[in-house]
């Protein structure tokens, strides 16, 4: 719980920054946000929520000392992982990465004037994508870490390490995983949804 408290602060700073910039230049943020693919974002959220369910069921199997159940649900949770980051990658590559990535070498499409091009990089629209890539990237990093931890849990569970009296590592993994899900629950509407009508 301590760790998760610091994690709340860690992501919280980013959320605060995002909100400040959003209200400083709402129009640019709205324009930028609309470049994102809502369907992909929704699928991604669905995948994450599902993996949270299987994780909860894995912890429940731990409480019951059901070794097979632990392994099965952990593997199911891990299975969801690559597909989720895959859909996120798709949602960014389709329209955004080429056009709006904060990386300086790729200029906005159809933009020939050098001055406009340079200005667009300092604009809030690209600062939206700085937040977008940094926050989703950080979130993805957490998922990769979770994946590694879960792989270790599968091995331990398979050896029958977790019994109804002792399944703390499994429970910790679950808490961590649900936290990662929690972050996305707020990221998804903030990044994808709230700007459709500005």
């Amino acid at each position, binding site marked *: 719980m301590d760790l998760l408290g610091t994690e709340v602060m860690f992501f919280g700073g980013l959320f605060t920054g995002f909100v400040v910039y959003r209200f400083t230049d709402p129009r640019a943020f709205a324009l930028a946000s609309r470049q994102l693919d809502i369907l992909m974002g929704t699928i991604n959220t669905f995948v994450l929520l599902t993996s949270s369910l299987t994780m909860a069921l894995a912890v429940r199997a731990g409480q019951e000392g059901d070794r097979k159940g632990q392994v099965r649900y952990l593997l199911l949770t891990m299975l969801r992982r690559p597909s989720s980051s895959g859909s996120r990658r798709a949602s960014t590559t389709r329209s955004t990465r080429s056009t709006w990535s904060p990386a300086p070498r790729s200029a906005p499409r159809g933009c020939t004037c050098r001055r406009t091009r340079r200005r667009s990089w300092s604009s809030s629209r690209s600062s939206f994508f700085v937040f977008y890539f940094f926050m989703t990237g950080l979130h993805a990093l957490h998922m990769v870490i979770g994946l590694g931890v879960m792989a270790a849990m599968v091995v331990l569970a398979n050896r029958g390490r977790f019994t109804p009296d002792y399944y703390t590592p499994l429970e910790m993994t679950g808490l961590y995983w649900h936290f990662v899900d929690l972050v996305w629950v707020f990221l998804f509407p903030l990044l994808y949804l709230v700007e459709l*009508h500005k």
Partner: protein
Amino acid sequence: MSTHTTLHVLPRSVYYSVYAALLVLLLATVGAAYIDLGAFNFLVSMAIAVIKAVLIMLIFMHVRYSERLVWIFASAAFFWLAVLIRMSLNDYFTRAG
């Protein structure tokens, strides 16, 4: 964490119903985003996100069945987050220009 000795194993149906509720809320938030509610779009989507977060924390993360100390830790984190956001916004939006 020593809380699991006080935990009772929840029936699977509880997890499935929470999951179903989360999916309904997901559809609701996407659906609401397409309706123009003005400033309320932001409030509605954040309200739904908070409901989802509370569901995940209370049931999936077992906070509901945990001891008081866990409640204190969990709420302290969000309390400080609220302070952080509130203070920052106070600062930014009361500056001239």
